């Protein structure tokens, strides 16, 4: 297990290095001089030169790359050029909205998809199964940000159960913020839960056809005991992969959904940074998002190996 973990850790570090190179060079090399780009066309040359010096652009490109990566490793992401505060502080504050939203949506996805997928698998071929499959087919086709708008229209404007947007802040208490994140999380979770329920259903159906399930039934377990005790565990392996992938979809989705609910998360930060040409912020947030996705993939790989000993030997 340790050897497997180490080999995965090595490929994780390699991915991170390549990803950081790609991001850095796309942002810093292609557009020419970042300082004049950030200041716009009408900037005076001495302003551009001053910003260049401040950003360290007079240094060779490789030195700047190392400074950027080294800074990130020590928690120093540089200073935002529009906000005039450390990028690390900006990101930390915004993560306090985006991350809980993503995790909330992921939990909802799992809580909805597991029972629905199991019921569909257990009753496969029935009208209930057909209904569930039709419903998930529709759920997959719904854009989450549009579903979010419908939720606002119905629950916030018509029924007035929730506010249409905004975020009170964690210092105002736990539940009031959870309530503010509920509609966005539901909107994010619905399409992903539809996908996961379908994966769950086919994974359980596949394991139900295996010999060990027949053995379990033959030794006297009821159908339900066989499903819960044996099929479910084995079906979890493909399900786990999808959940790992879904994390990155939810995180990207959270960035879009934040627009619907006016949530002060990473999405608002990055879209403002793009319009204000605050490249340092764009660079750091993108790196953070990619880091999160690579990290989750790594954790899923480890979780697999913990569940399935065969994978450990293969590495």
């Amino acid at each position, binding site marked *: 297990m340790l050897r497997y973990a180490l080999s995965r850790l090595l490929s994780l570090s390699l991915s991170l290095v390549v990803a950081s190179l790609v991001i850095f060079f796309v942002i810093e090399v292609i557009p020419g001089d970042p300082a004049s780009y950030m200041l716009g066309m009408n900037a005076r040359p001495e302003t551009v030169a001053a910003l260049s010096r401040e950003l360290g652009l007079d240094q060779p490109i490789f030195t700047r790359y190392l400074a950027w990566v080294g800074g990130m490793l020590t928690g120093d992401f540089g200073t935002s050029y529009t906000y005039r505060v450390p990028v690390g502080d900006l990101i930390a504050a915004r993560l306090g909205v985006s991350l809980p939203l993503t995790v909330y949506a992921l939990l909802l996805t799992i809580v909805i998809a597991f029972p629905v997928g199991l019921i569909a698998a257990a009753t496969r071929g029935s009208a209930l199964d057909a209904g569930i499959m039709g419903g998930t087919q529709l759920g997959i*086709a719904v*854009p989450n940000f*549009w579903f979010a*708008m419908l939720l606002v*229209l119905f629950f916030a404007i018509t029924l007035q159960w929730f506010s249409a947007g905004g975020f009170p802040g964690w210092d105002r208490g736990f539940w009031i913020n959870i309530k503010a994140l509920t509609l966005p999380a539901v909107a994010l979770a619905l399409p992903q839960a539809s996908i996961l329920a379908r994966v769950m259903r086919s994974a359980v159906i596949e394991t139900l056809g295996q010999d060990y399930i027949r053995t379990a039934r033959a030794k006297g377990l009821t159908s339900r005991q066989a499903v819960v005790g044996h099929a479910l565990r084995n079906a979890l392996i493909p399900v786990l992969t999808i959940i790992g992938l879904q994390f990155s979809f939810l995180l990207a989705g959270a960035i879009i959904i934040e627009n619907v609910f006016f949530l002060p998360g990473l*999405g608002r930060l990055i879209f403002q940074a793009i319009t204000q040409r605050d490249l340092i912020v764009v660079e750091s947030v993108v790196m953070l998002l990619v880091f999160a996705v690579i990290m989750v993939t790594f954790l899923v790989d480890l979780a697999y190996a913990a569940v399935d000993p065969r994978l450990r030997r293969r590495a």
Partner: protein
Amino acid sequence: MKRLPLTLWIGAALSAVFALAALVSFLWTPYAVDGMMIASRLQAPSAAHWFGTDHFGRDILSMIMVGARTSIAVAVIAVGMGMALGVPLGLLAAANRGGLVDEIIMRGNDLIFAFPALVIAILITAVFGPSAVNAIIAIGIFNTPVFARVTRGGALSLWTLDYIRAAEVAGKGPARISVEHILPNIANLLIVQGTIQFSLGILAEAALSYVGLGAQPPTPSWGRMLAEAQTMISIAPHMAIIPGLAIVLTVLGLNLMGDGLRDVLDPRVRRAR
């Protein structure tokens, strides 16, 4: 002749409606989409305007028809780009199975998977500014590893078969075998995956134009119609509901068609039933 699955018919019909709407929009739309008619703004659906009008008095049906053009064009080109890059990479990886080239291609794939389409779009937009072309490139890059993986998976199982070995004995090189024998036999897989990526592309295009990273005004696009509808949602809900329904029905149609095609074309699924 085998009976085609019902889902295939429903899916094809839904997709055809939107493809037709896009085609007709080149010749005719009920109203002009670039004309502002402030007098008729924010009208609910009626006999004159089937889907109502927006905050500039533009006819929403006409906007939906022209928007279908944007959605379909972006998604089709992005699928084409993903195939053009991904399929040769997948064939190469399979021909080199177990080798260094295979390893590099697969690791490269994993790396691109770590960049969600939205993140690629953000990067491109930060550098070049927003446009529909960015959306195409972002979705196309996102599609590439998907096609590479499907191609490699399909090709790997073929490489073990006798007729491929016979072709090798006959003196054909791996490149020629890949093109002459492997590619035709995985075309089914690619068509099915292409349909799925097409529908994902429509969703991604809508999301990107909704956040302002896709098609720019005055090009009508379903995602931007939704962005504009957002501030009007309490006074003109039809502005938000109708473009969303257009997206849902198109994506649903393509997904149903993809499922139906898979049932017909993919021998593995047929056996499993």
